[in-house]
């Protein structure tokens, strides 16, 4: 068989999977629904955040210059300075401004929101101190020095610290959920496809013009492409909507790169689980029996997912480090961990190499199992028997 026709056979099988499964109505509908959900989720923060227009604030009195400096530094305010407190008060009544700060009072029609109150209060505290110090005769330079405070530095003494922010947590959670789904679904489809060909006996005709590895490989590649397109669509819509609503800058640093590197991790993990699913799928002859042989795979996928969820609460613990390095758990755990915390480069490298080695092993094992048992019909074949059989 020439190199060319070998590749052609592989691609024909993959192409059929893409046409028949990827372009099936059910897959297209589920893709659209998922993309819409991801889009809505990504847009949610800005929708809840309400209108983003600046708060209109009136200022008057001695502290007005200092307040103005503070509020401008914070940003997000439309500031008007009035000559007298009465004018500022009038402006609030006329609704020319949302609130006014003058002579130690906050004027508003019906009170202000929590967030605005906190900001104005903070600005007021600083402005008042500044004004007092200035009246006490300090220079601006001295005031600036006196007011410069280093924010608290977090020192974690216990190893399992690394408490992540809510946003980090959710980013990691979403990555682990998507990874889990994107592995679980195609893995089951591969096994189902193998059993379908076996139970319908079509495999006997296929094997007269294809090698077993082409048949299994094409199936894994085909479903991989379908899932990859789904994954990329989700990531693109998620990041795109975040960018459009201006939320992208608010996401934790490295989210974008974590989302993109997740695709790489997914590819290796998929090769591992996909070929194993094809191999064990070929052990049975009927669709009803596929559940029993798939159980170990589904268990380890589920454990990887649960481990990743657990890891979210303690991303720097030893458990997290081990989980994100040992295959097959690392397939989900490492991208999750990378999304929420800084991971040493050597750990990423080691994890990647181990996962790739495991995938290569799975490729060999899965295709051997497949080759030896795909034409065997009857009751379920034992794993040991399949491995003993001559190909």
């Amino acid at each position, binding site marked *: *068989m*020439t190199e060319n*026709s070998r590749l052609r*056979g592989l691609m*024909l099988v993959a192409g*059929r999977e893409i*046409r*028949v499964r990827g372009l*099936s109505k059910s897959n297209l509908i589920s893709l659209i629904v998922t993309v819409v959900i991801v889009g809505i989720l990504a847009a949610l923060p800005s929708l809840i955040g309400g209108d983003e227009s600046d708060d209109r604030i009136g200022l008057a009195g001695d502290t007005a210059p200092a307040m103005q400096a503070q509020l401008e530094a914070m940003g997000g305010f439309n500031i008007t300075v009035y000559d007298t407190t009465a004018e500022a008060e009038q402006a609030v009544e006329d609704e020319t401004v949302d609130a006014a700060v003058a002579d130690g009072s906050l004027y508003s029609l019906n009170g202000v929101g929590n967030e605005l109150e906190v900001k104005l209060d903070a600005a007021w505290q600083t402005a008042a101190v500044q004004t007092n110090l200035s009246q006490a005769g300090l220079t601006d330079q001295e005031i600036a020095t006196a007011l410069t405070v280093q924010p608290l530095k977090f020192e974690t003494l216990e190893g399992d610290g690394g408490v992540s922010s809510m946003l980090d947590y959710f980013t990691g959670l979403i990555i682990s959920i998507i990874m889990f789904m994107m592995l679980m679904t195609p893995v089951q489809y591969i096994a189902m496809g193998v059993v*379908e*060909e076996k139970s*319908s*006996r*079509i*495999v*006997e*005709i*296929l*094997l*007269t*013009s*294809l*090698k077993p590895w082409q048949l299994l490989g094409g199936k894994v590649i085909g479903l991989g492409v379908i899932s990859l397109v789904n994954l990329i669509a989700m990531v693109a819509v998620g990041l795109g909507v975040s960018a459009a609503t201006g939320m992208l800058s608010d996401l934790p640093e490295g989210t974008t790169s974590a989302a993109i590197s997740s695709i790489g991790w997914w590819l290796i993990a998929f090769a591992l689980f996909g070929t194993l699913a094809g191999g064990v799928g070929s052990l049975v002859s009927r669709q009803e029996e596929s559940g029993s042989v798939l159980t170990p795979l589904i268990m380890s996928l589920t454990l990887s997912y649960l481990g990743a969820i657990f890891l979210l609460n303690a991303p720097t613990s030893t458990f997290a480090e081990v989980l994100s390095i040992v295959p097959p758990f690392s397939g989900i755990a490492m991208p999750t961990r990378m999304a929420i915390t800084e991971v040493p480069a050597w750990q990423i490298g080691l994890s990647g190499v181990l996962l790739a080695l495991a995938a290569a092993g799975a490729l060999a094992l899965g295709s051997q199992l497949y080759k030896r048992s795909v*034409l065997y019909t009857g009751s379920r074949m034992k794993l040991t028997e399949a491995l003993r059989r*001559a190909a």
Partner: protein
Amino acid sequence: MLEIKDLHKRFGDTVALDGVSLTAAPGEVVGFVGANGAGKTTTMRIAMGVLAADSGEIVYNGAPLGVEQRRRFGYMPSERGLYPKMKTGEQVAYFGELHGMTKAEAKRSAAELLEQLNLTDRMGDFVQDLSLGNQQRVQLAVSLVHDPEVLVLDEPFSGLDPLAVDVMGTALKDRAAAGAPVIFSSHQLDLIERLCDSVVIIGNGRIIASGTVEELKDKEVKQLRISVETAEDLTARFTGTVTRDGDDYLIEDGDDQEALRIAAAAGRVTRFAYDQPTIAEIFREAVTR
């Protein structure tokens, strides 16, 4: 020329094939006959490379059969199989492509075959929505779509309606006329007799008889059948082994000319001929021998 040489195959303790050899010359239609479990399917599976033999080889045009050549063979396995959730036309064309045709060639060939099989208006339907008979026709299209050089067909006629039997029969004859060796197995011995140039009979994993239809018939013990309009019983007067079949006399190992004289003297001879055994009789004789 397709040569199957001295195949041996065991499944555990069961000997499935014990030195099976058969040959199909270019343009020859070979009928492969045997009881259930005799080894027909195993032989064909080995020939098509879906099963490995313990020993023996498959030779095509003088060289061991390779994967690339085998892709130009047409195969119909005994256990039929199609993708249930794939459109009929797409499915037939897909198999054409797997056998090395270009996309356009495969599409055209699939459309032509399905038209011959009266399935043109079902091309866009899923195979699972077709009746069982129509699925059989699609199966036939799948094995013929790539205009195969050699046909190896396991029970190609089982489950086919008369129209499809004709299409299949014509396809076999056409392929053979174009120079392809054709091997097919069947339990429908009338079809074998009608379509085959030669017949191979297998029993318990061994070839028990083979040759052209004429050769096999000649090998059988010949019986002379005589019908005479007479009230007299001539049994004792004929020489050789004489038995009665209704009013007819069946004579083995006798002198036919002398028998004719005796019969003619006794009354009007309405029938005087050697019985031609049918393939079915040859088969029965061969497997019980």
